[in-house]
């Protein structure tokens, strides 16, 4: 058996189990920790694709930033953060049925579609190439989305301060 496949299977099992705990655990702190495991697993998947910069961004922004934000929110909210009230069985079953139906349908479609996905070369993207593409102004370069993203982040910083500050 291929070593890549074994590592991928381990990663996939850890991610799926952590994701299930993240949406079913009754303590929000545990759910957040399990979300962290899913995000680290995703970074591992990016390293599998040889997208090392994307994996590093995933770890720093998602696992380092967003999870810390979540933990801050949970600690600030305190007592209200425990999911004390259980959902009704009917809603639970409805959610389960929807998710399972969608999952089975999607997996069936993935299995029956030819994606022409045999061009994987395992070289990844050179960081110089990526930097030129993000900052370039030619065709297939991304200076405009990059600048729009910086404006979005500025707006969201100002908006978050405005919303969260005391009157």
């Amino acid at each position, binding site marked *: 058996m291929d070593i890549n496949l074994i590592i991928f299977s381990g990663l996939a099992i850890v991610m799926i189990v952590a994701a299930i705990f993240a949406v079913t655990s009754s303590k929000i702190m545990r759910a957040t920790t399990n979300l962290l495991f899913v995000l680290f697993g995703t970074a591992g998947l990016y390293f599998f694709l040889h997208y090392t910069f994307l994996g590093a961004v995933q770890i720093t922004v998602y696992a380092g930033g967003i999870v810390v934000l979540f933990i801050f929110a949970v600690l600030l909210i305190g007592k209200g953060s425990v999911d004390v009230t259980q959902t009704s069985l009917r809603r639970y079953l409805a959610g389960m049925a929807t998710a399972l139906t969608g*999952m089975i349908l999607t997996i069936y479609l993935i299995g029956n579609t030819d994606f022409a996905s045999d061009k994987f070369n395992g070289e990844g993207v050179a960081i110089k190439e990526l930097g030129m593409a993000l900052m370039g102004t030619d065709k297939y370069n991304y200076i405009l989305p990059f600048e729009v993203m910086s404006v979005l982040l500025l707006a969201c910083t100002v908006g978050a301060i405005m919303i969260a500050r005391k009157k």
Partner: protein
Amino acid sequence: MSIPAEYMLILSAVLFFIGIFGFFTRRNLVSLLISTELMLNAVDINFAVFNAYCRPESLEGYVFSLFGIGVAAAETAVAIAIIINVYRNFHSIHIKRLRDLKH
């Protein structure tokens, strides 16, 4: 020897629908946000996988995945500010209490 693309797509589909399940069943704003993060994360995986396996010479999926992570960070910051504000006003983040705008 590399992993088939379908395995990664199936993994991201499973993560996405676990997020959907959490979104339908959780009754707490922070839990709903965690479910949303799971779904966004699954979408980012899909972008990166399609880029790596179908068009490795271009950068569209890679860059879109990067921007998706940025948008997720922005969305989480604003959402957590709103949740803290809601908690300050209602002393609860259970969505049963938040029905003033509903009717």
